[in-house]
């Protein structure tokens, strides 16, 4: 490095015009630059490895165990062979459904308020702050909250308790994405609607919501995808069950309910090969479910533009 510098300095002292204006590839700073570029390439590739490793393991380990039986039968006990996780699929869908049923209407109403009715009001700022705080809210604490609210009150673990915990996690995503989507609606469209005598409600229901629908849907689907994969809030609100949600002729909404995520967690710690294989197969189904919802939402978001 010294040699290069001194040569350049000498050149500069004697004959300023002779200073090489182009950077030489073997110069120290060029080499540093090349090295760092190589480094980020390597880091980016390393960062991509986990995703492919997870997908590979899911395809190999989960794919080999996946069968009609696995999708439709009840979880096996200890040394039993066979079995599946049909009740967990039903449980996950039911609880995410309950969560969406609570969080989507509340979230959209809240977003309507934030974007149309009082965007600059003090309440709106407070709500926005609360929603942002809730996005960073640890999912396990949503479980603790639902446990304190529902489980301690009713005295048993249940699907609605799990649904409430998931709803707490979904609502901020719905609010923030729906608000953003509604803000993108051109003001000129709203003004036109006001101009022909619409009330604010009519503007919201007939102009703003239909126009912003793809964006709102994207947010809802992202929230659903996240909720479907959540385990921590379900561990001690819905617990787990080896029975169907509908069994012995009645709906067991007041009973512990199975979910894919909790099944994976429970089975992963068991010393039985059969259960571990089922955990992989259930992971494959769960990831497929999450990725399909996630990619669909991406597709909707793309279409919007």
């Amino acid at each position: 490095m010294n040699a290069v510098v001194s040569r350049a300095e000498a050149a500069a002292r004697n004959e300023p015009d002779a200073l090489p204006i182009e950077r030489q590839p073997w110069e120290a700073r060029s080499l540093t630059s090349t090295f760092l570029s190589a480094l980020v390439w390597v880091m980016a590739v390393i960062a991509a490895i986990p995703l492919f490793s997870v997908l590979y393991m899911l395809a190999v380990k989960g794919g080999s165990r996946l069968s009609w039986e696995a999708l439709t039968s009840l979880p096996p006990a200890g040394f039993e062979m066979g079995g599946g996780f049909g009740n967990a699929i039903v449980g996950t869908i039911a609880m995410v459904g309950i969560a969406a049923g609570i969080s989507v209407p509340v979230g959209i109403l809240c977003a309507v308020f934030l974007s149309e009715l009082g965007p600059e009001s003090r309440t709106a700022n407070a709500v926005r702050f609360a929603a942002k705080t809730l996005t960073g809210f640890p999912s396990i604490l949503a479980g603790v909250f639902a446990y304190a609210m529902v489980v301690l009150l009713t005295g048993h673990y249940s699907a609605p308790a799990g649904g409430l915990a998931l709803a707490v996690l979904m609502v901020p995503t719905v609010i923030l994405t729906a608000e953003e989507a509604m803000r993108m609606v051109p003001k000129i469209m709203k003004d036109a609607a006001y101009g022909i005598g619409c009330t604010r409600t009519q503007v919201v229901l007939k102009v703003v919501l239909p126009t912003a629908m793809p964006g709102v849907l994207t947010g809802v689907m992202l929230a659903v995808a996240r909720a479907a994969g959540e385990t921590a809030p379900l561990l001690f609100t819905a617990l787990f069950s080896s029975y169907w949600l509908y069994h012995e002729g009645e709906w067991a909404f007041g009973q512990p309910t199975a979910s894919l995520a909790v099944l994976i967690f429970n089975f992963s710690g068991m010393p039985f090969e059969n259960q571990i294989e089922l955990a992989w197969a259930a992971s494959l189904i769960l990831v497929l479910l999450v990725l399909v919802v996630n990619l669909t939402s991406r597709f909707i978001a793309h279409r919007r533009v």
Partner: protein
Amino acid sequence: MSSAPAAELQGGSVSGPPSPFDYFFDRAFRGLAYAGAASILLLLALILYEIGGKALPGIREHGVALLVSSNWDVKAGEFGILPAIWGTLYSSLLALIIGGAFGVAMAIFLTQDFLPPRLAQVFRTIVELLAAIPSVVYGLWGIFVVIPVIRPVADWLHDKLAVIPFFSTSLAGPGMLPAAMVLAIMVLPTVAAVSQDALRLVPYKVKEAAYGLGTTRWEAILKVLLPAARNGIFGALVLGFGRALGETMALAMLVGNSNQVTLSLFAPANTLAALLALNFPEAGPKEIPVLMYAALVLLAITLLVNIAGSAIMVLAGRQGGAR
């Protein structure tokens, strides 16, 4: 909703004053939207009230002693969450160091024209999908892939360098390092996404000016772009840290759940979230107030970190706008 639009059209005008029903409906809907907004504030207050209220007996009984003790003996009624607090901070910090370095590198890689746009989009999708995979699946993957892969390395480090406190125990299976590595993968997308936004806020002119002075690509990145985006990147790291603090499943499955305070990367440890996840399902009346107390501690730590992160982001946004 507007009254008989067909009739109005016949009359030659589409506009008209709202009917009494429209007024009523408008009032009702606005009230409903207001209630929806207020319910979020109520929810946050209710969360604080429920967790705080249920923790109160635990705080009264154990006070500060719970925070500094390491015993966990349900039968004797002795509880201490110091190892869990330590484990939470230590694992999150390790994850932040690994995930933060990769996340920022990824953000630079994706925003500084290293790739043709199409390939950049592929990498961006990869990072986003990393965030989409449920943490329980990462936990499963960690047990059956990460632990076997790093065990030989860990054993070698322990054999040769046992003097260094980080390597003072051997990796028996679950432990701090595999947990922190998986946690790092979950932190990476947050850091990468927020840092990318921060780097994009730096005007292109600034970079052109640096190149015009004859800098190499990396001199421009290290000396001009990163300093210009430092608040945003710092905010990204704080948010990533907040994410790591609250993460539960990967840790509950990989960290080993042992109540000890140690620097060793290979020793099993515990975290607040894992403690809650594993003890709540079978908690008796003695444990519940203690666990609620632990939940309150976790809530306080994450709220603090997240609010700090958001505040830094707001600050960074203002600076970006002012430039």
